């Protein structure tokens, strides 16, 4: 329950339902009977955070323990923050309404780089020092996980420990250790020393980083008994690992307001630009029976009328037919819609098409990523123009009149011809519509192309590449627009300033902590929201701290350089990434993991097991 003071300001703010708690299925416990109070923080608005599957999984896993009460915390929107600061009301957790500064564990999930300032702001709003070194007592311990933890060096000064990889079992072990440490009255330092021994725990303050004169890293040295290389954690079997049998049902509408079910983790494709495709390896599939049963229970307990199957590439799930048959047998009579995001053009079968037409029709989205075959080969997006056109034709004859295509600008080796190729390919998709003899009368076609800017990311074959500068990206955007000749194609693209900042922080090192601190102190927060984004402040932050952002974003690294994340082990061997990088520059493709094992090394994390099930396992 929120306090009376908070209740008083609720009528003054937009969407008060963000701040009340009390939603169906939220977990209430007796605080006198738990040992660990855990604040799970999502550093963005309620609507974004409540859409995130990870928080649902980890919230329910932590609350399964009787000795722990895990609660949710989101970043209050500008208006709410102002009212809270005016009245000195500290950041509170939604379930109990208690200030999180008195909690034992504060966990952030780092989903994107531009949420970093919100982490600082939430710590400050809680009434805690933002720097790890200034929080002296054992509790609260501030931890962070999520994809950005694979190189969260820019956040190293603020976070006590990072959790690498799958969180289901890892969080549990950290909670147990913290509970014991509290009982034994351990100091924070002693707790961190013990925590660093847990596989998947990275304590940044236990690593000394030295630099060369050219500002590159000279060495990273572990101390206090921390491992030289921190290996990410994985859960071995998705069928037996905890999955929530209950979702909190928000009162206000959130972005993804439905039952979401993860069908497999990892990806067989190996697209060279895609960090998720490497970060979550090896492939682990969940059985169709487990998914079907869990979906049924979730629908019953929430009352949702939509299920979305989640993975990096839905049509690569080996039992998709079986799963859809099982699901549709009860979802159709109960009028529940099944959504299949992340379909690929190369295995979009007629049978799948037929199944899809049984569920409510939404838009169709395909991601060719690049405009020419040469560039698609270089990024290892193993999709041909023919496949894109054939699938579009199939969709058009199936009655669709709108198709969305995803592309990227600024990919390594990209030329202006490749950029023009995006316009050409989109035009060919339009033409495909008019070739269809049964096209609906009086209806035009709408091809929407969404063009994002490429950001090189750690643990991908492109981790050494230079990102296009803002000027280059803008020129390419202009070139693309000048090549589009019809109104049937609409183009949207990302702000280059945002992609540029992502580029800096994605591959940044810990010297960037002071840039983040400066930007936050000067009013930056909610940076991923266009109307909150203050690019001029960020530029000033680099200037004032004497840091050249282009050193991080637009500098091509040598294979010999020590990268800020080289002491973290995500199972993917550096040799493999180097080999993939070289192949990219020769526009050579690598077949996906089911055709031939590429030998990335990630199967070693799972005792040699990998659900790509390739017979030629390296």
């Amino acid at each position, binding site marked *: 329950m929120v306090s009376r003071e908070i209740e008083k300001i609720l009528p003054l703010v937009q969407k008060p339902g963000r701040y009340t708690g009390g939603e169906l299925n939220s977990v209430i416990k007796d605080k006198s009977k738990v040992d660990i109070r855990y604040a799970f923080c999502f550093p963005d608005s309620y609507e974004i955070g409540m859409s995130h599957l990870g928080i649902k999984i980890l919230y329910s896993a932590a609350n399964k323990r009787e000795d722990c009460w895990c609660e949710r915390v989101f970043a209050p929107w500008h208006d709410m923050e102002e009212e809270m600061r005016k009245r000195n009301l500290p950041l509170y957790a939604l379930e109990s309404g208690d200030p999180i500064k008195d909690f034992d564990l504060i966990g952030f999930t780092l989903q994107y780089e531009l949420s970093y300032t919100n982490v600082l702001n939430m710590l400050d709003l809680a009434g805690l020092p933002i720097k790890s070194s200034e929080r002296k007592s054992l509790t609260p311990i501030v931890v962070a996980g999520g994809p950005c933890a694979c190189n969260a060096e820019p956040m190293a000064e603020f976070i006590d420990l990072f959790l690498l990889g799958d969180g289901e079992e890892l969080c549990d072990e950290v909670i147990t250790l913290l509970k014991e440490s509290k009982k034994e009255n351990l100091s924070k330092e002693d707790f961190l020393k013990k925590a660093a021994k847990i596989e998947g725990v990275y304590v940044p303050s236990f690593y000394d980083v030295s630099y060369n004169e050219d500002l590159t890293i000279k060495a990273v040295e572990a101390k206090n008994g921390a491992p030289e290389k921190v290996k990410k954690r994985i859960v071995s079997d998705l069928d037996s690992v905890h999955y929530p049998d209950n979702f909190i049902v928000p009162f206000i509408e959130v972005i993804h307001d439905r039952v979401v079910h993860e069908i497999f983790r990892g990806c067989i494709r190996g697209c060279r630009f895609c960090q998720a495709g490497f970060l979550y390896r090896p492939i682990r599939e969940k059985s169709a029976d487990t998914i079907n049963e869990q979906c049924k229970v979730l629908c019953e307990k929430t009352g949702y009328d939509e299920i979305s199957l989640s993975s990096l590439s839905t049509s690569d799930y080996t039992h998709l037919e079986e799963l859809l048959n099982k699901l549709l047998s009860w979802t159709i009579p109960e009028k529940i819609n099944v959504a299949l995001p992340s379909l690929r053009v190369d295995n979009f079968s007629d049978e799948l098409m037929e199944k899809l037409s049984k569920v*409510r029709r939404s838009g169709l989205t395909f991601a060719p990523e690049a405009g020419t075959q040469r560039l698609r080969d270089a990024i290892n997006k193993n999709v041909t123009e023919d496949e894109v056109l054939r699938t579009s034709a199939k969709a058009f004859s199936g009655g669709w009149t709108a198709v969305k295509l995803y592309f990227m600008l600024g990919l390594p080796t990209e030329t202006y011809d490749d950029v023009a190729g995006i316009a050409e390919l989109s035009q060919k998709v339009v033409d495909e519509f008019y070739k269809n003899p049964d096209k609906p009368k009086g209806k035009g076609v709408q091809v929407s192309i969404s063009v994002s800017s490429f950001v090189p990311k750690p643990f991908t074959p492109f981790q050494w590449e230079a990102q296009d500068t803002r000027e280059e990206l803008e020129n390419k955007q202009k070139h693309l627009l000048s090549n589009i000749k019809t109104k049937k194609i609409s183009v949207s693209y990302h702000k280059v300033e945002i992609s540029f900042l992502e580029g800096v922080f994605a591959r940044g090192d810990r010297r960037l902590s002071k840039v983040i601190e400066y930007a936050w102190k000067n009013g930056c927060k909610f940076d991923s929201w266009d109307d909150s984004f203050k690019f001029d402040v960020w530029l000033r932050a680099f200037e004032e701290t004497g840091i050249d952002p282009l050193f991080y974003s637009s500098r091509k690294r040598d294979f010999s350089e020590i990268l800020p994340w080289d002491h973290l082990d995500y199972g993917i061997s550096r040799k493999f990434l180097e080999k993939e990088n070289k192949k990219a520059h020769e526009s050579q493709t690598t077949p996906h993991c089911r055709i031939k094992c590429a030998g990335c090394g990630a199967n070693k994390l799972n005792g040699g097991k990998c659900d790509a099930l390739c017979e030629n396992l390296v």
Partner: protein
Amino acid sequence: MRCVRIWFEKVGMSRYISHLDLMRTMSRAVRRSKIPLWYTEGFNPHPYMTFALPLSLGMESICESMDIKIEGEISNEEIFSSLKAVMPEGINIKSVTDGEIDPKYIAFGKFEIRFSGVENGEDFCLMLKDILSSSELPVQKLGKKGRKKVYKEINLMEYIKEYSVKEASQEPVLEVLLPAGSVTNVNPSLLAEEIIKRAGDGVSYVILRKELFTDKMESFK
């Protein structure tokens, strides 16, 4: 297929659920309860669900009602107990009836305005009576002129049908009868805002809708 009226309270934190969000919340609750719903027969089948009179965000109520269409053999008592078991905090099912009056005949609402943070209860009540015994109380009411939203000045006193003041030490309560419904509707917060403007800092209020009436002052059933 038959139509039933579900009566419920919307109190506590649930008063911050907007009308649009309430519709979503209720349709999910009905799905969880497994009541055999009747679905529309169009291209995109959906359950039939309509609310008597939307409640403003932030207001509490003990007289909300929603009409749904059901299919198959199920008694009102069974609907009541299945729904009651699946409601979120603050939305409490009170009863299930067949619904006697069409919501379009709703004309008045009785509201309770509870004030808090009042320093001197007696003085405050005197002020209340003073305001309410005047002949004119001009306020700005947001109305529509064609499609545009415009402010219009109205004399609140012309709309207040009845009122009574209850002194409960630090938390005085004002009960007031105002036009409510699709023809004329006066939001009690117009009156409450006017009062706290004169009451000074620190005073806040919560409004509770207690009962709805037809133009013949018959209770809405």
